[in-house]
C-alpha cells in the first residue's frame, strides 16, 4: 500500500463509532456501570499498556502472540492490554494483600488482541465486567452469575441464556482415563472447539476398552438441564470431577429460580484463556451467532502475582451488546436547535442558546448557512428582535425568549 492508500484507512480490526453508535455504546456503559455500582462493585482503571510479563500470565505462553507489543527506551517489552482480568489480578495482588478481605471490582475498558478479524472478532474491542476476589465459595460464583443475568435484564435483552460448566470436570475425567498427556491435550483442544469428530477419532485411536470409550464420549459432551449433573455423578469415579460436580450443584442451588431457568449445563465447556480453574459460564442470545458474556473462576491467577486469592468474574463484549441493541434502538439522531442571527444580533442569539440549554435542549449558534439550512429546528433572530422559528412543516414568529423556549418544550417534550 502507498502512503495515500493508508491515509484514509483504519488498521484492520478497528472501528470508528459515529454519533449514533457512540451514544448508544455510552448509554449501554452507563446502564451497566449503574448496575455494578448498585451491587457494590467499584470501578478501577488500569494502564492501557503493561509489561509483557504481566499480560503473559493471562494469555499463557502459547497464546502470547495475540498481544500487541512494543519497546520502551530502556528496552523493556510492553504490550497493550490483552484482557481486563490480568491487570486487575496484578493490582489486587500488589495493593490489597489483606488475608480475608473481599474485593468487588468493576471495569469498562478497551482490549487489544492481534487476532484475525472476523465475525464478532476485532483487534480493538470494549468490555465491561467485574471481578469478585477473595472467596472460593459457590456463593461468590452464584453472585456473579446472578449479576450477569441482571445486566442482560437491565439492558432489556430478554432472549438470553447462560451455559454453565466446570473446567476441572473434564480435567478429572481425562486424568483418570489412562490417556497419554498428548492425547489429553488433543482432546482438550477438540473440546474447546466443540469438534466432536476429532474427539471421537482420538478416543477411537487410543485403544481403550469400548465401554470406557463410550463413557468418555458421553461424559465429555454432556449437556442439558441441571439434571445432567446427577447423571455425570453416576458415571464418573474421578474425585476431581466429583468435587467439580458438587461445586456446580451448590452454585445452581444458590441461584434464584428466574436465573436458573436460563441456565443450561455444558460439562464439556472449556475456555480459550487458560487461567480458569473452576466454574465457567457463557451468556448468549439466539439472535447473534456468538457469545455475549463470558466468565468464570480463576483461583490461581492472582497467585502468580504473589498473593494467593481465589476469584471469579465475567466480562460483556460491548460491541456485541451494541449489535443487539442497535437492532431495536430508535433513531438516535440528536435533536439540535440551530440559532441563527442577522448582524449585529449575535449577543441576542447567544442569550437564546443559553436559555434553551438551561431548559435542557441542545442548542448551537450557527456558523454558516448550511448549518442553519440542514437544521431540524432553526430560529433566526431578526433586527426587530423577533424570532423566526422554522421546522420542516411549520413556520412562526415569536416575540420573546420565553415564547421560543415554550415552543421547543412543546415540540420536543
Amino acid at each position: 500500500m502507498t502512503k495515500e492508500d493508508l491515509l484514509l484507512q483504519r488498521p484492520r480490526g478497528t472501528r470508528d463509532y459515529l454519533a449514533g453508535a457512540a451514544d448508544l455504546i455510552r448509554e449501554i456503559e452507563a446502564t451497566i456501570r449503574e448496575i455494578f455500582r448498585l451491587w457494590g462493585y467499584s470501578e478501577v482503571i488500569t494502564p492501557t499498556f503493561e509489561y509483557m510479563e504481566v499480560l503473559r500470565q493471562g494469555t499463557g505462553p502459547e497464546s502470547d502472540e495475540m498481544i500487541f507489543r512494543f519497546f520502551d527506551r530502556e528496552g523493556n517489552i510492553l504490550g497493550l492490554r490483552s484482557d481486563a482480568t490480568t491487570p486487575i489480578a496484578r493490582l489486587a495482588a500488589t495493593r490489597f494483600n489483606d488475608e480475608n478481605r473481599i474485593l468487588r471490582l468493576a471495569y469498562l475498558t478497551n482490549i487489544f488482541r492481534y487476532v484475525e478479524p472476523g465475525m464478532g472478532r476485532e483487534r480493538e474491542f470494549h468490555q465491561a465486567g467485574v471481578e469478585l476476589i477473595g472467596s472460593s465459595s459457590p456463593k461468590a460464583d452464584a453472585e456473579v452469575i446472578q449479576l450477569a443475568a441482571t445486566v442482560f435484564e437491565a439492558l432489556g435483552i430478554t432472549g438470553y441464556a447462560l451455559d454453565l460448566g466446570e473446567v476441572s470436570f473434564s480435567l478429572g475425567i481425562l486424568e483418570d482415563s489412562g490417556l497419554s498427556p498428548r492425547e489429553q491435550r488433543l482432546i482438550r483442544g477438540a473440546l474447546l472447539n466443540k469438534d466432536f469428530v476429532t474427539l471421537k477419532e482420538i478416543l477411537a485411536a487410543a485403544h481403550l476398552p469400548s465401554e470406557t470409550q463410550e463413557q468418555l464420549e458421553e461424559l465429555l459432551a454432556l449437556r442439558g438441564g441441571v439434571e445432567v449433573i446427577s447423571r455425570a455423578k453416576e458415571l464418573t469415579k474421578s474425585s476431581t470431577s466429583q468435587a467439580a460436580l458438587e461445586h456446580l450443584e451448590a452454585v445452581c442451588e444458590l441461584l434464584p429460580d428466574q436465573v436458573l431457568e436460563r441456565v443450561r449445563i455444558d460439562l464439556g465447556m472449556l475456555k480459550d484463556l487458560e487461567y480458569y480453574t473452576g466454574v465457567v459460564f457463557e451468556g448468549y442470545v439466539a439472535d447473534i451467532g456468538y457469545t455475549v458474556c463470558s466468565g468464570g473462576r480463576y483461583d490461581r491467577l492472582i497467585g502468580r502475582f504473589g498473593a494467593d486469592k481465589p476469584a471469579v468474574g465475567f466480562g460483556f463484549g460491548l460491541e456485541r451488546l451494541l449489535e443487539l441493541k442497535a437492532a431495536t434502538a430508535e433513531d438516535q439522531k440528536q435533536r439540535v436547535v440551530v440559532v441563527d442571527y442577522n448582524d449585529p444580533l449575535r449577543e441576542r442569539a447567544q442569550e437564546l442558546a443559553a436559555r434553551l440549554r438551561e431548559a435542557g435542549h441542545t442548542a448551537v449558534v450557527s456558523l454558516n448557512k448550511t448549518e442553519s439550512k440542514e437544521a431540524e429546528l432553526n430560529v433566526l433572530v431578526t433586527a426587530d428582535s423577533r424570532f423566526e422559528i422554522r421546522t420542516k412543516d411549520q413556520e412562526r414568529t415569536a416575540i420573546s425568549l420565553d415564547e421560543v423556549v415554550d415552543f421547543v418544550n412543546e415540540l420536543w417534550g
Partner: protein
Amino acid sequence: MDPIKVAVPKGRLFTPVLKMLAQAGFIDLEPDLDPERRLMLSTPDGSWQFLLVKPADVPVYVEYGAVDLGVAGKDVLLEAGRELCELVDLGIGKCRLIMAVPDDSPITKATDLLPGSRIATKFPRISRSFFASHGIQVEILKLNGSIELAPKAGLATAIVDITETGSTLAQNNLRVVEEIRTVSARLVSNKISYKVRYPLIQEMVKRLSAVQGEKASV
C-alpha cells in the same frame, strides 16, 4: 418455532447428501432436481429447511448463523478455517487430499521439491500449512479449476488437490507422491445454534448417524 436451517453443498457431495437426508426421512428424493435452479428444499411440515449453496460457502453460512447446520467436506472446512462445531463424520464423499507431480518428474516426496517451487491448488491454506509443517519453502498459486493442467502448462511443479479414485490424475499423467490426509463430509453447526437448538440438532445427528450405521453394516 423457527425452522432449523441446513446448508447443503451443491457439487460432488450434492447427490450423496440428498440421498442420506432422504434415507433419514427429512426429504423426498426428486429425480429431476436441478441444483442450479432450486435454492431450497424443506420437510412437508416446514420444520427443516435445506438451502442449496456452493460448497465453499457452507462454512460462511454456518459461522454467521444464517443457517444452524451445514454439510461440508473436511477439505472445505480446513480451507475455510471458520469457527464452528464439527458434530459428526457422515462417512460419505470420502477422498484423499494429495500432492501430485507429472509421471516423468524425478520428485518422489514433498521434501524433494526445490525451494521456491510453484504449487498449483484450490487449497492454498491447507497447502501452506502442509509445506510449512515439512519446512519446505514453496510458492502457492491459487487456481479456481483444472488444477491438473498447471504442470502440463509449465505453471507449476506440483499440485495439491483432492482425488477420489485417482483416474483424473492418471488421465493427465500425474502421479501421487504425498497423501496429506483423507477427507469426508461432516455435519457442522453454528456455535450458538448448538446451544440454543441442541435437542433438534441432536435429533439430526442421531438420524444421520443411524443411516450411516445401516450402510456400514450392509
